[in-house]
């Protein structure tokens, strides 16, 4: 699958450079390399979850105990975590670093992912959670660092949205041409 190993490595290295020592995760396609990198790193505590909201509690415990953490989840996992974010992380002023794969945006082909993308930013805004987009390798490291800095200075959650342009290596906007290429005598022309 064309999930970007290079971008995943840049993200993972940025987390390590910031001193993140625990990662909680629920598998999702775009996160597979990140999770594998955490798994292969003996210095990283990886906690595989049954549901993303658990990660809020685990990160809260880790933070109070002195370990920086990051949560890896899909935007649907973020939506499933909202009560924990509000009634644990916000109520108790816990700095959370949430890396959220932003499915359902332009280019999404999985019909079942298309509802979550449109509400993710609105829910983040409603919760007053500062967020930034990670959509190019060039700004990954400093946005992660700045996000963590704000999380710690404010004692609040922050979110970074992992975007398709960063995580997925398939050329964008070429779906029709690809279909045409696959079926040279097909009915779809590139201009159809």
């Amino acid at each position, binding site marked *: 699958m064309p999930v970007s190993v290079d971008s995943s490595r840049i993200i993972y290295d940025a987390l390590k450079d910031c001193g993140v*020592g625990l990662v909680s995760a629920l598998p999702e396609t775009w996160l597979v390399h990140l999770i594998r990198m955490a798994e292969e790193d003996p210095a990283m505590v990886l906690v595989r979850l049954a549901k993303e909201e658990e990660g809020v*509690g685990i990160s809260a*415990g880790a933070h109070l*105990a002195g370990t920086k953490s990051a949560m890896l989840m899909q935007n649907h996992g973020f939506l499933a975590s909202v009560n924990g974010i509000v009634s644990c992380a916000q109520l108790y002023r816990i700095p959370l670093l949430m890396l959220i794969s932003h499915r359902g945006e332009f280019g999404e082909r999985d019909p079942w992912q298309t509802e979550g993308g449109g509400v993710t930013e609105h829910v983040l805004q409603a919760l007053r959670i500062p967020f930034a987009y990670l959509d190019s390798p060039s700004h990954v490291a400093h946005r992660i660092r700045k996000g963590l800095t704000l999380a710690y200075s404010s004692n609040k959650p922050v979110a970074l949205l992992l975007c398709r342009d960063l995580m997925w290596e398939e050329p964008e906007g070429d779906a029709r041409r690809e279909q045409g290429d696959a079926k040279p005598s097909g009915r779809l022309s590139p201009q159809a």
Partner: protein
Amino acid sequence: MLRLDALNSVYDRLADRVVITIMGAVAAELQAIGHRPNFFYLQHAMGLASSMGLGVALTRPELSVVVFDGDGSILMNLGGLTTLARYRPKNLVHVVFDNESLLSVGGFPTATSTGSDIAGMAAAAGVPRTATVRTIDDFVAAFDDALASQQLTTIVAKVDAKGPAGFVTDLALLENRFEFQRWLRKTGAAQPTHHPR
């Protein structure tokens, strides 16, 4: 068995341990017995006290962690039992006070009142040691066995659906949170460790 009596019976064992409780009667009663800086009361986020305990236990293996959970709370995070069991920290004792009701909101009966067995679910999730106890003597024995065993243990303590007159105490939530963090910092540096995947 009264939860207050159960808490009193192990109170002296909690002096140097990380203690995390759920909201409601457990928090109010433990504070009434005597608050300590190593006690944290998660006054909302039902279900996440055990997850917080896991976060502390995994990142501070040199500390002993006790979670005081409840039936209503753990029923909201049954998946968390599988995560506890997956990493089975040796330094975590998970006590579930099961009064078969959501006492602080009027006593609405939970599914344990109709037979759902939390110790059975914990064992089936893979928690290596579980027990269900109904008397103070059995509770104290199970608690001491759990501490001595150095294995993740879930103890379900069946208690009466009786609680304190009120649940709000004079300990502010954030006061508790920063005091608890300071205690954890003071007790030594974080030592993340390798653990099973």
